[in-house]
């Protein structure tokens, strides 16, 4: 399934792009598995995904935990903990 992956803040900087469209292999069930799979795509991806504990995620513009299922997602975002306000 083609999914839009968004990156923000230092995740975006390390990956090198803010958005990519990816065909996810069917065996990827959760955000955590997606993070592991993305890490293999480039050195930048590897650096950004090195420590999943530092990452947060959203599916279709709602915050989710890293064990959330990705099935049916159209847009997945990975980013550091938010620091607004």
């Amino acid at each position, binding site marked *: 399934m083609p999914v839009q992956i968004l990156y923000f803040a230092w995740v975006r900087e390390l990956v090198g792009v803010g958005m990519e469209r990816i065909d996810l292999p069917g065996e990827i069930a959760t955000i955590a598995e997606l993070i592991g799979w993305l890490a293999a795509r480039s050195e930048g991806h590897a650096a950004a995904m090195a420590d999943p504990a530092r990452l947060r995620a959203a599916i279709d513009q709602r*915050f989710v935990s890293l064990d959330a299922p990705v099935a049916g997602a159209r847009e997945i975002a990975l980013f550091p*903990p938010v*620091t607004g306000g």
Partner: protein
Amino acid sequence: MIVVRVQPGPLDPAAELAALGASGAVASFTGHVRADDGVRLLELEHYPGMTERALEELAAAAAERWPLSALRIVHRVGAMQPGEAIVFVGAASDHRAAALEATAYLIDRLKTDAPFWKRESRGGPDAASWVERRAADDEAATRWD
């Protein structure tokens, strides 16, 4: 009346306060870029689309929880100088406690529930750094659970 706005241009807290109207009780909170720790430029990145949705849900949750006649959330994005306003939240009500509590709730929750990221520049080529999340912000947000 609920107003939620994300804007790249300057934020005028005085105008936002006035726009909350003349209910019996009107409370507000404004966050400014701190000038005291050498920061020369603050950049605020956000997640367009999700940001507005998150702020609207936050506003709706506050309006559900307290009897409010008006509520405003205005957040700047992009580059800002020290002393400039980053965020304004405010609530109006017939009841003093409702206005005060809703305002505290809005700013506490905004800090954990909306996709914004701050980057500070202190001058020099490599001096820009992403602000780390503070545990105190998580604690402040969870007191409303």
